Structure formats: C-alpha cells, structure tokens
C-alpha cells in the first residue's frame, strides 16, 4: 500500500518543545513526556450535530432505507415489540433527553394513532446487567416510564424458563433464539444508539435479545481470534456470524430498525481541553489541566470518578437511519467512521495509551481488573481498520492502577473468574472448553443476573475472549502506575514504576530506533492504519530520535 502524502491534522509528532501529553490512568490523569519523534493520534473534532433531531427521526422513519415507512407497516390490533439498546451505550451516558427517549416520543404516539395497543418495550440487555428502574427512566423519559414500567417495559431476561423462542438454525449451524415476546410479535422495532462500529445492525436484535445458545455461536475465543478487528465489520468474524444469524431472524420476523449516531463530544466545555493537542492549549486550559491533574491526585477513587460522571456527555446526534436492518446500518457505519477514523501511515513498534475509568461494562461501577484487560487488549487494540496500530509482537505501554477491586453488585462473578480461574490458566481456549459452561450455569450467579444487578456469569469469560485477538498479536503489555504487582501478572502484564522505565523495557525487545505512537483517548477515535513496508517507514521518519524520553 502506498503512503499518503501528509499526516492527518489529528496526527501530531512530538518535537523538542512539545509539552507532556495528558493521558487517563483510570480516574486519574497523568502527564507523559513522550520522546521526540513520537506520533500522537488525537480524536477528530466532534461532527456537527443535527439541528433538529426530532425532524430527523420523523424523516428517517417516513423515508426508510429499504422497505415501507413505519406508519405503512402498522395496523390496528397488531402486536409490536420495541427493543432498545441498554446503558452500555453511549459512554458516558448522554445528556437528557437521551436519543432513545426522543425516538420513543415519536414512535409510541404513532403506534397509538394507528390503533396499536399491544406494545412492549424490552431493554436488550442480553447477558449485561439489568438496568435499574432509575436508569431506565432516565433513558426512556418519565412519560414512557410511567406508562409502561414494569409490566410493558422491562429488561430482557435471557435465563427465563420459556422466555426464549428458537427461530431457526443457520447453514453454519448457529442457533437463532430470541425473546419469545419479540419472536411472536407482528413487528419488532429496534431503537439503537450506535456508539462504535461493532454496535448495531444485526447485532442489535440477534444478540441483544438472545440467550446462551445463540451467544455460544459467536462469543468465542475462535471468533475473536479470527476477527482482524471487531471494530471493522468487514474484517470481523464475530460480525459475519452475527450477520448470518440476523439475516435468518429477519426472514422470519418483520424488523424495523432505527439507528442513531452521535458525535464524540464526550466532555462538556469544562473538560473539553482533554480532547485537544496539549501544545494548542490556551494558558487557561493549561492551568485547568494542571489543577485537574493535581485535584484528581488528591481525591479518593469514588470522588475522582464522580468528577467525570457528574456531567453527562453533551453528545450531538449526527444521524438517524431507519428501515431495513442492513441498509440502515450501512449509513450508520458511514457516519461512525466519518467521526472516528483517523488515517494513519504505518504501524508502531510501541504503542502508548491511557486507560480510562469507563468501559461499556462498568457504567456506575468501578473498572475492575478484567475490564482493564478488556480495554487494553480488546477495545483499544481493536480500534483500527486495515492493520493494528501496534506491530505484531510489539509492545503496548498502558497507564492504569489495576486496583484489585470489583463492584459487588455488578461484577461478583468476575471476582471468582479473576481470582480462581486466571491463576489456573490464561488460555482462552482452555477457559472456554474446560470452565465456561459450568461457571455460566452457576445458579447463584444466574439468580443475581435475573433478580439483582449483576452481569451473567458467562460474561467474564466473554470479556476475556474480547481481548483474545489483541492477546495473540501484542508481544508485551507494560503497565505504568499499577498499585500492585499481582493483578498485572495475573493478566499477563509486566509493570514499570515510571514511563521512562517502561520505555526502556520496551526498547529491549523492539528493533533499533523503534517507532512509537500514542493513542490519545478519550474521546473515541479509530485508526485507519495503512501498513507501510520498511522503506516507506524509513522515508516517512517513523522512528524515535535517539535518546528521546
């Protein structure tokens, strides 16, 4: 592949007068002095939000991508189920009104106008924790909540005896099984919020409303290993399997998909400087950053996390696409990549990344050690198209305390996974074959999933698999700032007390004059990596200057 002519404006090269980069280390911020010649990838500026979101929703459902408009599919007395994405999207939760509330406020009156009274709303949690009543109310709005909760608005229960109906089996032998209520409806409307390219499309209904038999078709180490990047649907084996299953589902069920995209305005004005190049900060922003770093250092963990969670993200809605699942999703993906994808020339020998306090699986909870690994080797590694940002066998230097702490309500089964199973093996295949089934059927954990606030006991396994392609690709992970040695070693990581020490360690196994790239996340970004050959790399100067850091 040929190299592009000049780097994207979001790609910055560190020079002699560059300021330290400010990266997340859990709920703290750390200043990192990158060596001269390092490359830093910043998120693109937020795309402009739609000026009239309600009008865009109306337009999308009246002018769908494939098939008839929503109103033309309605008839009096029909049975309709509306499924909704859960609280794992977006991150952090968006300012009210949540886009799902806005969609419901338009769709539900339309159903009523057309004489459709048999309407259920299901939060498509699959094996995620159930959302609390308060969280659901915030997501759907007071009016819908008051009308439908709890009898006709509820979380999906993938373990309810008799609660799932088999739709069929794909040619590849994958069992398609979803919520009986949805399966027996005349129309299934799915209201999605597409945060990353892995979301949405057939994954919405075929995964969000399914049970363990269906999940076992794709939530496996094999599917993840075979996914070049699961954030790139075309290269994702996970996605290919889900698409097969979703297509079968849509053959048997009338599905009307409503997808929405948001920009990457994760922070309000007060913290917006965190998404900018540190060299472009105004004196005021620089002062605010210094104050924030020191304040966070002085606060206890809960208070630190609260600083970031106090203000919901002011995301702007950038697109609403409705109609046939694949046609609508194609438009959604375009909008996603337009916001996130930063073109990058060449992979790096060493990738440096901050690891934030939040993931899709710890909303209103602590980012436990297993989720740290999901971020490093799963989500952050997979935020690419073309080729991984780090070269095969390369080193990732990540900042995180790796505290041995778990949320007892949401992640109790994770404790047993991390402290009982990982010491036995880190081999995802062995965990999958030897331990997953028994663990996933643990009656107490299943009970906590069904009636408490907990993730399903299969979920920690899925989380370990989520890092499997990263684990196979990355040579070393070095953690800077860990508050203990045990957890990083359990996860298969090395530790360093300072960035300089980590860099020295990384250099020991890297080629001479290694290239270094820093992923400046959050907000969200993806790297569209154009892998260069050695000559191209040399000509583009993708090497650290000697003696950096």
């Amino acid at each position, binding site marked *: 592949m040929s190299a592009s002519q000049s780097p994207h404006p979001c790609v910055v090269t560190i020079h002699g007068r560059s300021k330290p980069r400010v990266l997340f280390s859990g709920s703290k911020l750390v200043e990192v002095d990158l060596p001269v010649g390092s490359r830093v990838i910043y998120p693109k500026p937020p795309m402009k939000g739609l000026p009239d979101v309600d009008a865009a929703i109306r337009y999308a459902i009246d002018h769908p991508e494939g098939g008839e408009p929503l109103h033309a599919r309605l008839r009096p007395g029909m049975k309709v189920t509306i499924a909704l994405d859960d609280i794992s999207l977006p991150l952090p939760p968006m300012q009210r009104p949540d886009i799902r509330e806005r969609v419901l406020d338009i769709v539900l009156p339309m159903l009523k106008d057309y004489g459709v009274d048999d309407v259920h709303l299901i939060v498509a949690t699959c094996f995620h924790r159930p959302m609390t*009543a308060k969280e659901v109310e915030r997501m759907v709005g007071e009016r819908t909540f008051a009308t439908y909760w709890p009898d006709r608005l509820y979380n999906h*229960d993938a373990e309810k005896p008799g609660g799932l109906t088999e739709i069929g089996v794909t040619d590849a032998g994958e069992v398609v099984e979803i919520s009986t209520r949805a399966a027996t409806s005349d129309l299934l409307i799915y209201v999605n919020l597409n945060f990353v390219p892995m979301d949405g499309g057939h994954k919405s209904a075929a995964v969000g409303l399914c049970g363990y038999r269906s999940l076992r078709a794709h939530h496996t180490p094999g599917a993840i290993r075979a996914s070049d990047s699961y954030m790139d649907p075309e290269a994702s084996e996970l996605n290919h399997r889900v698409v097969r299953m979703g297509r079968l589902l849509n053959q048997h069920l009338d599905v009307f998909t409503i997808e929405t995209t948001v920009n990457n305005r994760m922070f309000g004005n007060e913290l917006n400087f965190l998404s900018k190049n540190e060299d472009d900060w105004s004196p005021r922003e620089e002062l605010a950053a210094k104050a924030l770093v020191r304040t966070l250092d002085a606060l206890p963990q809960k208070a630190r996390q609260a600083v970031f969670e106090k203000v919901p993200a002011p995301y702007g809605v950038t697109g609403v696409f409705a109609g046939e699942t694949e046609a609508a999703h194609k438009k959604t993906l375009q909008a996603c990549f337009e916001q996130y994808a930063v073109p990058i020339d060449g992979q790096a020998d060493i990738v440096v990344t901050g690891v934030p306090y939040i993931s899709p699986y710890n909303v209103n909870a602590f980012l436990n050690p297993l989720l740290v690994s999901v971020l490093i080797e799963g989500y952050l590694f997979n935020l690419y198209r073309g080729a991984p940002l780090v070269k095969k066998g390369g080193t990732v230097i990540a900042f995180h305390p790796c505290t041995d702490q778990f949320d007892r309500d949401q992640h109790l089964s994770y404790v047993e996974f991390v402290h009982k199973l990982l010491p036995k093996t880190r081999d995802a295949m062995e965990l999958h074959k030897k331990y997953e089934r028994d663990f996933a059927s643990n009656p*107490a954990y299943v009970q906590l999933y069904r009636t408490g606030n907990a993730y399903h006991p299969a979920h920690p396994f899925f989380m370990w698999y989520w890092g499997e392609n990263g684990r196979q690709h990355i040579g070393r992970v070095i953690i800077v700032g860990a508050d203990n040695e045990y957890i990083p070693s359990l996860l298969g990581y090395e530790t360093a007390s300072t960035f300089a020490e980590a860099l020295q360690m990384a250099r020991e196994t890297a080629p001479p004059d290694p290239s270094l790239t820093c992923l400046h996340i959050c907000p969200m970004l993806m790297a569209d990596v154009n892998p260069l050959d050695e000559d191209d790399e040399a000509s583009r100067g993708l090497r650290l200057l000697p003696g950096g850091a």
Partner: protein
Amino acid sequence: MGEPSPHSAPAPAYRATAYFDVDGTLVGTNLLHPMLHLLTQQPTPLQSAKRIGKALLAAPALAAAELRDRRRFNELLFSHYQGMSEDRLVVLAQQTHERVIVPRIFKGARDLVAQCRRAGLRVVFVTGSLDITVGPLAKELGADAVIANRLEMRKGKATGKLLRPVVAGPGKARLIADDARAVGHDLGSCHAYSDSASDVPMLSVVGHPFCINPDWRLRDLARAYDWAVLDLNRTSPGESRQ
C-alpha cells in the same frame, strides 16, 4: 424415620451437589415456627397449654444454648416432642408444612432450586429441622435428598431425644463432606447456601459458598471473602425483568 443421609441415590448425570440450609435460607421460618405449630395442635387445649407452658419455661435455657452451642439448642428444642406419637407427628408435620412453611417460602427459592437442577446439580437440604417437617418441603421444591435431624422413637412415641448425628452448626460440614464422598462428588465443585454465621463451617468446606439473606455476622464474612449474597425475596416480575 430413616437415616440423616440422602433420601435418594444420585442420578449419574449430576456433576456436583448443592447443599441448602433451609430455615431462613429458603423459607422465612426458624426452628421454632414448626414446633410452636405442633405444640398448639395437641389433642386437647389443655395438653397444648401444658406443652406451651413447659416450652416457655425452657425459653431462657434455649436462648442461652443458641448463643453457645447450636447442637445443644436443637436437643433442648426437640425435647418438647417427648411423648408425641409418631403417626400423629407425621400428620401434624404435613399440616405444619401446608400452614406454616409453604406461605413462608421465599419468592426466589423455587427458581434457585430449579436453576440448580438445570445446572446439573443434585440438591440436598441440610437442616437442623426434623426430617418429618422438611420432607414435604423437599418434595415441594424438588430437592433430591435431605440431611435432617431425626427424633428417637420408642414404641411408636418420641423420646424427646435426637438420633446421632445431630445436624447442627459445624456438624453440618462433616455431614455434607460424608455425603459428597458417598456420591463421588468433589467438595470443591459443590455449592452451599445459608443465611447464618452458624453455617460458616458448611460454607467453608465447599468450593462455591453463597449467602442468602444473611445475618450481620455472615454478611461481614461474605464481604471479606467475596461470597455472593442473594436476596430471595427479590424476584424479577415488576422489579427489573419480565
């Protein structure tokens, strides 16, 4: 009245056993509830009054025994059955089950036991209650076996003594270890559920200990050891799931 060991042989498909304490764990009763019902159901009101009066006089000793020695507590408690005929006890036990126990079964108890069965676990109730009172509950919830206390009978009447071994406190741990060995299950793969700190030995010998509506002492231990805590009064419909 049979052995304090399983009523039924394990089916070969079971991969491990789930041991459940009963009172306070699956049912909102304690050992006193069934006993009080039995005492009030004597052939004449005078006999009932006599037995209740005797029980009230023994209450301080019972309270002291509960604090010090669970086994002694059980022995004192069941001494009040002295002189009751076996056939009458069996009839009254069924009545106690229907009137006292069934209304107090926790909402999530049936689901949890059913989930154990679906997970391939043999279900055994391990309780200080009498086998005659817990038997109907085992049938109702679908347990495979019961390890419970048994009254000594002579000439068809209860002597007021318990047959050995008495099922209580640390003794439960040994009994379930014996049971697991007898059916060929590795204790490390077995599960145990209880509400009481007096059952910590039983919880400690299995690989998968869980607490249900625990008392404060057990809740503290659960927090320290990361044992899961379940609330069986919380069920899905109308709360978070359907």
